[in-house]
C-alpha cells in the first residue's frame, strides 16, 4: 500500500545551498558531493514503480572538526557484529574507554545466565596501561585469556576486539590467538578492528565478517569446534543474517519464518551461539536483513559453500508480506501455501493496528538519519501508517545502499550522507518535520527544537520493531512520540505565538 507523494525538491536544494555556505570553501566542495535531492529515475523496480536516483558520494573519510555522527571500526565489529554472540567472551583489547562506552548499549537481547554461560552485557577489557603501550600487550593478552578460562569456564570461546593502539604498537594478536586456541582447545578470534581503520563503522563490519570466515569457518586457530554431529539438515534450513535482535527483533522475525515452515538454524548475530556461526554453511539459504554489515560473509558463503542469499525487509506489513512471498517462492508451493496462511492470519492484526494508528499519524512527515539498513528499510513501515518521508541518509552507507534507497524514497526527498551536526540541525529547522528518527546524540537537540523524536538505533529502549508483532509496537511508539502533549507546552503563554501549538491525542 505504497503512498503516492513527492517532496518539495526546490526547497531541499535551497537548504543544501544554505548549509554549504557555512563551510570554508574547500570543505563546502567536499560536503556538496554528499548532499542531494532524490530525482525521478528512468529505471523501474520490481514493484513496477519508477525508482528515484539518490546520487551522493559515500563511504569517504569524514571531514575533521565538523561533528560527524559516525563511529569507528571497533564499533562495527565489537558493537555490531561480534558483541551479540552470546556464549563467547569479547575482549575490548586496549584502554578501558571503548568497552565502557559501548557496554550494554546496543540492546542485543538474548537468553542465558549472564556471567555463567553468556556474556553479552558485560565489559571485558585488557585495560591497557602505559607499560602495555611501551612494551607491547601480547603477554598481557595471553594472561587475560588464561584468566577468562579460569573464571568463565563455560565460555565457548573468545574474540579479541582490537582498539586503536593494538595496530599502532605492532602487537601480534594472531599469534597469541593461535597459541591460546591450541592450549585451551577453544575458538579464539583475533579481530583487527582498530578504530582508525577505514572511515566509519563500516570497515569494522567487513573486518569482523572476514574474521568469521578465517577464524571460525576456516578455523585458523585449529580449536575444537562444537559437536554438531546430531545435526540433521532439512530442505528448509535458513540462516537469518544481519539481525542483531535489538529489543527482540530477531525473535519477532523468527516466529514468522518458523510459521512459514522454515527452520532457522542460525541467527547472526543477535542471541547467537558460536555453534550457530559454525553451522551456517550447512543452511540452504541466507536471509540477510542488514545488508551493509553482513553482505560480505553471505557472498563468501555463496562462493565457497553454494549457499544462496536473499535480502528481505521485515519492517511494516507491506514489506513483510512482499519479503515473505519472495522467500517462500524460493522454497516452492508447499511453503508458499503456508506463507499465504500466515499472511492471512496476521492480516487481522495489521488491519487493527492500521485502523487504530493511521488516523493519528496520517500525513505526518519524517526525517531519518540512521546506520546500516534503516534509512531505507523503515520507510515503507511509516508509509503503511500514512506517514511521509521527507529526508533520509546513512552514517556509513556505500553506493549500493544509496542505489537501493531509490526503491524506497520519493522524488524531492532530501538525501544526506555522513551528515554533520550543523547540517542536520539546519535541515531539520528548514524542513520542520513532524518526527525525526536518529540516534542518542541527535535526540535531545531535536526535542529541544520542539520536534518529536525516536531513536532508531536502539528503538528508544522499546521494540521489537521487526515482524508483525513489532509493527504494532512501532505504530504505538510513533503515535506516542508525535501525539504527546509536551510539544504544545514549549512556548510560554506570555510569549508571542508564532504558530498554533500542536494538538495532542491521548492513548487509547
Amino acid at each position, binding site marked *: 500500500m505504497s503512498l503516492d507523494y513527492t517532496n518539495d525538491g526546490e526547497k531541499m536544494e535551497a537548504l543544501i545551498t544554505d548549509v554549504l555556505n557555512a563551510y570554508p570553501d574547500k*570543505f563546502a566542495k567536499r560536503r556538496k558531493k554528499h548532499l542531494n535531492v532524490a530525482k525521478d529515475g528512468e529505471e523501474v523496480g520490481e514493484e513496477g514503480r519508477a525508482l528515484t536516483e539518490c546520487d551522493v558520494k559515500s563511504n569517504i573519510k569524514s571531514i*575533521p572538526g565538523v561533528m560527524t555522527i559516525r563511529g569507528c571500526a571497533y564499533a562495527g565489529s565489537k558493537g555490531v557484529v561480534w558483541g551479540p554472540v552470546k556464549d563467547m567472551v569479547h575482549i575490548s583489547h586496549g584502554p578501558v574507554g571503548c568497552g*565502557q562506552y559501548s557496554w550494554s548499549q546496543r540492546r542485543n537481547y538474548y537468553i542465558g545466565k549472564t556471567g555463567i554461560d553468556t556474556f553479552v552485557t558485560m565489559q571485558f577489557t585488557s585495560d591497557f596501561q602505559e607499560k602495555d603501550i611501551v612494551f607491547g600487550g601480547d603477554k598481557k593478552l595471553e594472561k587475560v585469556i588464561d584468566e577468562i578460562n579460569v573464571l568463565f569456564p563455560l565460555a565457548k570461546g573468545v574474540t579479541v576486539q582490537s582498539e586503536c593502539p593494538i595496530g599502532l604498537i605492532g602487537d601480534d594478536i594472531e599469534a597469541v590467538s593461535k597459541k591460546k586456541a591450541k592450549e585451551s582447545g577453544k575458538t579464539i578470534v583475533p579481530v583487527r578492528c582498530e578504530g582508525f581503520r577505514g572511515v566509519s563503522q563500516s570497515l569494522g563490519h567487513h573486518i569482523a565478517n572476514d574474521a568469521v570466515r578465517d577464524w571460525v569457518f576456516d578455523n585458523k586457530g585449529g580449536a575444537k569446534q562444537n559437536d*554438531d554431529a546430531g545435526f540433521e539438515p532439512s530442505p528448509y534450513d535458513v540462516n537469518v543474517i544481519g539481525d542483531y535482535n535489538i529489543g527482540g527483533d530477531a525473535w519477532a522475525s523468527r516466529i514468522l519464518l518458523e510459521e512459514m515452515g522454515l527452520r532457522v538454524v542460525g541467527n547472526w548475530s543477535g542471541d547467537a551461539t558460536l555453534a550457530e556461526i559454525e553451522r551456517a554453511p550447512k543452511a540452504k539459504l541466507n536471509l540477510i536483513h542488514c545488508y551493509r554489515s553482513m553482505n560480505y560473509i553471505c557472498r563468501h558463503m555463496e562462493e565457497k559453500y553454494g549457499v544462496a542469499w536473499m535480502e528481505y525487509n521485515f519492517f511494516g506489513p507491506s514489506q513483510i508480506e512482499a519479503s515473505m512471498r519472495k522467500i517462500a517462492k524460493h522454497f516452492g508451493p508447499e511453503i508458499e501455501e503456508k506463507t499465504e496462511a500466515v499472511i492471512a492470519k496476521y492480516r487481522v492484526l495489521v488491519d487493527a493496528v492500521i485502523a487504530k494508528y493511521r488516523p493519528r499519524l496520517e500525513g505526518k512527515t519524517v526525517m531519518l538519519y540512521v546506520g546500516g539498513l534503516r534509512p531505507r528499510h523503515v520507510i515503507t513501515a511509516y508509509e503503511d501508517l500514512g506517514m511521509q518521508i521527507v529526508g533520509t541518509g546513512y552514517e556509513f552507507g556505500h553506493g549500493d545502499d544509496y542505489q537501493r534507497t531509490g526503491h524506497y524514497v520519493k522524488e524531492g526527498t532530501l538525501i544526506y550522507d555522513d551528515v554533520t551536526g550543523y547540517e542536520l540541525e539546519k535541515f531539520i529547522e528548514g524542513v520542520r518535520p513532524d518526527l525525526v528518527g536518529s540516534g542518542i546524540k541527535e535526540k535531545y537537540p531535536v526535542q529541544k527544537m520542539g520536534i518529536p523524536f525516536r531513536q532508531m538505533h536502539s528503538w528508544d529502549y522499546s521494540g521489537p520493531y521487526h515482524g508483525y508483532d513489532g509493527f504494532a509496537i512501532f505504530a504505538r511508539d510513533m503515535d506516542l512520540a508525535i501525539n504527546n502533549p509536551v510539544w504544545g507546552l514549549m512556548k510560554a503563554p506570555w510569549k508571542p505565538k508564532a504558530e498554533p501549538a500542536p494538538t495532542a491525542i491521548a492513548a487509547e
Partner: protein
Amino acid sequence: MPQSAEKVLDHAPLFREPEYTDMLARKKVMFECGVSDVQIQDTSEWTKTWEYREKNLARTALVVNPAKACQPLGAVFAAAGFEKTMSFVHGSQGCVAYYRSHLSRHFKEPSSAVSSSMTEDAAVFGGLNNMVDGLANTYKLYDPKMIAVSTTCMAEVIGDDLHAFIQTAKQKGSVPENFDVPFAHTPAFVGSHTDGYDNMMKGVLEHFWKDKERKVGTRINIIPGFDGFVVGNNRELKRILDAMGVDYTILSDAADQYDTPADGEFRMYDGGTKIDDVAAALDARATLSLQSWCTKKTMGFIGEKGQETASFHYPMGVGATDDLLMKISDLTGKPIPVEIEKERGRFVDAMADSQAHLHGKKYAIYGDPDFVYAMARFVMETGGEPTHCLATNGKTEWVEEMKALFASSPFGANAQVWAGKDLWHLRSLLFTEPVDFLIGSSYGKYLERDTGTPLIRLTFPIFDRHHHHRFPVWGYQGGLRVLTTLLDKVFDTLDRETINPGVTDYSYDLTR
C-alpha cells in the same frame, strides 16, 4: 497470536507469551549447542564461593565490568563548563561519538564535541592536517568562543604534539592568532576520566594564566570536579555561596550546559564560566577543589602560582559540608549565615527522625574515589557501616585516606577498601561478605540481579533512572536528598519483603 492493537505488548511481556517461550526453548535445544542446565547451575553456585573469590581477586590482567572511563571523557566534561566552548578531540572519531553518547545517556541532554577524524594515513603521517582543517571547520561552523583540545589514545600513541600543531594551525589561519585554544594531552592508557578532567583543567588555566602577573585579590575559586550531579550540585553550591555573600568563581561550571530548556530552541552552548573570569581567577586569594582526586595536578599548578589551596572529597553529608563551609568562612571572613545553619539543623533533624532505619545497615559503595569517600563518611554519620568501598580508579594514597576515615568512626571498624578492583570483584565480595545495600551507578543493576542486593543509584553514570542529577546531593539540602534516597530504598525493600498476603504481611506496616 500474542500481539494485539488494543493492548500493544512491549518486549517484556511479549516474549513471555507461550508462542515465544516455546520457540526459544526449541532454539536452545535444537540449535544452540549450549551446556547442560546442571553445569550452568553448578558453575553459577561455584561463582558464589570463597574459592571463586580468591581466584577472582588473584586476577592481574583481565578487567571485568570496571567502574571507570577513559581520560578524554573527563576532558570533554571539564571543557563543557566554560562559556561557549567546543571540545575538539584529536584522534580517531569513534571515540567522540562514544563520549557524546555516554554523556547524553546520563544527562538526557545534547552533548556537543568534535573530532579531528584521524584515519590510517594520519596514523602514518601524523594528524597535523587534521588539526589544521579541523580547527578551521569547527571555528566556522560552530561559532565557539574557545576550542578545548584533548586527545584520544591513537594520537597519543603516535605522539602528536598538540602545542606545535595548534601553533601551526593558527599560523595557517584556521583560527585567529589570539583565539583561545587551550589543550591537554589525555592518554586513555593512563589513569581514568578523573585524570582527564584534571589535565584539561590544568590545560585551561595554563593557557589563560601563562605570562600573567598575579595581583592578589579577595575572590575564591572553586573547582567542582567530574560530577554526574553537576546540574543540581553547582546550583546548590552557588546558592550557598550567594547566601554567604562570598565573591567566587566556579572554574568549569557545566550546570547550565547539561540542563538547557525545551522552548523550541536548541542551544549548543549555555552558561559556563566566563572566559574573562577564567583569566581573572589567577588573582583569587585561594582555590578550593571539591574533589581532590580530580584535581591533583591542577591544584599543584595553582599552588605554584602562589594561591592558597585546599581540597575536599565531595561535600556530601553533614561533616563534609561543615568542613567546606568553615573553610570558605575562614578564607573569606564571611560568617556562615543563620539560614544555612538552620538548614543544617533541619538536615540533622531528619537524620534523627529516621536513625532507627539506618543504624547498623551495611553498604557496599563504589564509584570515583572522592564520591566513595564522601558516601562512606555520610553512611557512618547515619550509623551505617561501609563494608566494601571500591574504586576501580583508586590509588594507594586513596586507600590510606579511606583507612584513616574508617579509623575515625566506630562504624568503620569492619570496613574494607578495594582500590583498582572492578564490579566482577565486587560480585564475589557481595556473595561472600553480603551487605544490605549497594550504592553506585546504573552498572550496579547487574550486581543487584545476581546477588539480590538492592541498588541505590547515586553516582555517574545513571542511565536507567531519569533526572536525579537535576537535584543536588551537596550541602545540607543535598544531604537531605541523599538521606531520603537511602530511606526510600530501605522502606521499598522492607515493603517488598513483607507484601505477601497472609504470609508476611503482618509486618506490612502502614506507619514506619
